[in-house]
């Protein structure tokens, strides 16, 4: 097997792993062949295609060993904070403490996919009255009940206000099952009135100054609560240092995204990029290692771009992707159909933009909170997507609906209309459940049609 970049199967990865071992590739302590995770029940891995680099191997192993890290952290005397919904803000604060590890129980939404529904989490959610009309994040309830996928955190913190109803309702259900939650409010971000003091947010949105001040006061409340849990005070210096570390993650991701979306030949598959982006929200429970993992991935991508090699054909259709997929395999499918990712908006762009370092740290975090694309209007979100499409030259947009998610019912129309008005490019809306096997032919046909349309438009 050569070192040529390509997408390979899990079986091929075992051979590749041996090859890397023989070549003396260093592995972190959580390293090993990817196929060993199948024994843990991660059946979906058998059906995915992976990047064949050592950097990708490290990324996957890092992702798939998070549960072990959480248990180790607890055993080592650290406190665990379950942060929910805000997708990126509270962990920046939490990792500024010496003895706190924060993670998103929301991440359980991928368990039904990765374990191909074998974990029974959705059935448990059903039994608690949270059926398939809710977003797959309902798997989180099952994970709390079984205790088999992450340790129950020492404290749960969940944002409310401008959030999706299904998550809010599921978190409330969790609370009613005896898991106390500290709720904090994120108001709907609105545009400042003409005579109102305004603040620029990371990523380009603006918000009224009073909203930033309000969120800052809510974050003060969270800080006090986490200090209680940690038994340790968090001063400005430590929080600023935490922000700097988070920004290192964001800078690597920004470079990765830029290269992945703009290189002539796509240097890294969509699936690995999705996982890399996800690391930004809670650092997969180890901030330091996240930085190292991303650094290695970036080095690999830079080397490929410099060498003019990639993993897809040069004429792949450039697709902007909106919302994360519940079934990871769909990211492979897009590439199988002749597409490549050229721009993403996976609901958490606020976790990708650098946090201002020239402001008092809590104010900086408040600005980041309000930069969340989901706390503002769908129009704002669409305009931001348009700005990226303009920059990246995306040729079509896919809006991936999350089954049952309250925001997906109406936002797709608004985003689709605005993008079409602005660029007149094809817009495809698809729904992606946790396991798409039964509808794979349909999804495939729709993706192929989109790619064909994009390529046909080039000839005009």
């Amino acid at each position, binding site marked *: 097997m050569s070192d040529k970049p390509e997408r390979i199967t899990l079986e091929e990865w075992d051979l590749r792993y041996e090859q890397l071992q023989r070549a003396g590739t260093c592995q972190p302590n959580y390293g090993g062949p990817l196929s060993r995770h199948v024994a843990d029940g991660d059946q979906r891995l058998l059906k995915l295609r992976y990047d064949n680099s050592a950097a990708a191997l490290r990324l996957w192993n890092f992702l798939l060993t998070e549960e072990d890290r959480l248990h180790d952290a607890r055993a080592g005397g650290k406190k665990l904070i379950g942060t929910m919904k805000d997708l990126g803000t509270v962990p920046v604060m939490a990792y500024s403490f010496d003895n706190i590890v924060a993670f998103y129980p929301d991440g359980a939404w991928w368990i039904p996919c990765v374990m191909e529904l074998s974990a029974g989490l959705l059935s448990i959610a059903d039994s*608690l*009255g*949270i059926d398939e*009309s*809710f977003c797959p994040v309902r798997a989180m309830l099952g994970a709390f009940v079984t205790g088999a996928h992450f340790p129950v955190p020492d404290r749960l913190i*969940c944002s*409310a*206000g*401008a*959030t*999706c*109803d*299904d998550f*809010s*309702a*599921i*978190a*409330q*259900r969790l*609370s*009613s099952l005896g898991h106390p*939650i500290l*709720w*904090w*409010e994120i*108001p*709907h971000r*609105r545009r400042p*009135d003409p005579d109102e003091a305004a603040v620029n947010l990371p990523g380009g949105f603006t918000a009224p100054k*009073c909203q930033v001040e*309000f969120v800052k*006061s*809510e974050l003060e*409340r969270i800080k006090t609560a986490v200090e209680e849990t940690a038994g340790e005070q968090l001063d400005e210096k430590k929080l600023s240092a935490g922000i700097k570390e988070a920004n290192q993650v964001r800078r690597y991701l920004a470079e990765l995204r830029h290269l992945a979306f703009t290189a002539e030949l796509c240097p890294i598959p969509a699936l690995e990029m999705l996982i890399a982006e996800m690391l930004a929200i809670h650092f997969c429970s180890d901030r330091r290692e996240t930085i190292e993992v991303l650094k290695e991935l970036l080095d690999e991508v830079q080397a490929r771009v410099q060498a003019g090699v990639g993993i897809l054909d040069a004429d792949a259709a450039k697709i902007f992707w909106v919302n994360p997929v519940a079934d990871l395999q769909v990211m492979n499918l897009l590439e199988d159909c002749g597409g490549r990712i050229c721009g993403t908006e996976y609901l958490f762009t606020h976790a990708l933009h650098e946090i201002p370092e020239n402001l008092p740290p809590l104010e900086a975090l408040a600005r980041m909170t309000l930069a969340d694309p989901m706390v503002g*209007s*769908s*129009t704002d979100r669409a305009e931001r997507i348009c700005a990226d499409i303009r920059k990246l030259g995306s040729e079509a947009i896919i809006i991936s*609906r999350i089954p*049952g998610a*309250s*925001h*997906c*019912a*109406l*936002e797709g*129309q*608004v985003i689709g*209309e605005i993008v079409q008005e602005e660029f007149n490019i094809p817009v495809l809306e698809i729904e992606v459940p946790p396991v798409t096997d039964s509808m794979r032919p349909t999804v495939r046909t729709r993706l192929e049609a989109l790619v064909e349309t994009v390529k046909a438009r080039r000839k005009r």
Partner: protein
Amino acid sequence: MKRIIYTCPYVPAEWIAAHGLQPSRVIPDAAEATAPLGRAEGVCPYVQGFINEVITDKQACGVVITTVCDQMRRAFDILVRRSDVPVFLMNVPNTWQNVGVQKLYIDELKRLGRFLTGLGGKSPLGDALTEIMLKYDTARKSILAARGYLSAGRYAEKIAAFGRDGPGRMTNNTTGLEPIIEGVPLAIVGGPLMRRDFDILDIAEQAGGRIVLDATETGERGMCMPFDRRRLPVAAWPRHDGRDEPLMELANAYFGGIQDVSRRPNSELYKWLKSKFTDREVRGIIFHRYVWCDMWHAELRRLKDWTDLPVLDIDTTGDNETRRHRTANRIHAFLETL
């Protein structure tokens, strides 16, 4: 008088009226699909119905929407693009336990005031707000007092008429009526009812039940708590000393007084229900929810676990006759078991 429409109970009608505009709480008739919304898959029928009502309403000069639920928050995005009428999105916090969010609600009322002024409303001066609050408060007391004398359907209509028209046209039509004491005492619990779904109340009563508690959002539960009149001095808002007593009391009665499923935590809703169930000797609960309303749907199993009372789940799409027959059959069967 210029008419301002809204549907969320956290929008205080008194505040709109104090600006010299006519507040009108819209209750959609039904959730029929119309062109403005396009695809309705996954859309809460009530939100769908509300969007349709706003787009077809040719009399309104402004619309107020709140952030209480996500789909309604996003309906704002649709209406801004589809309607020529100015739309205001009011932030109503879901959390409620600290002073910061209470202040946020009051600040949002003030911002709403500026929106209303922009539509031709006048700033509330002198005793206007206090007077209007007292008038509304008296009317609400009169409605609540009529409950025992009216069928549940008529009672719901009375609340709806008050929301739509305000206290001006209200008549006391309970004179000479005897209290209604027949029937198995029931509560109906849930989000708002669309007008066509008011028939659920009649169906329940025709089947031998008596709705003693309308805990839907369009029923009693959606009415603010009575004002503390001691906090409504004649000295008016805004006062020269900068204190906003009437506005504070208004905010307290609405934001602090309406217990909703969307609250985080929503424990106060359960306290409110417990107290009402006990006071009114409720023997069964009709739980009404619209499909795709996650907030209420998620509470169904919890409610069943929480109460010893039998609970009948009625889920509707708010749009057809088949639904009506199915609902009627289920309610009849439920009452037979009671």
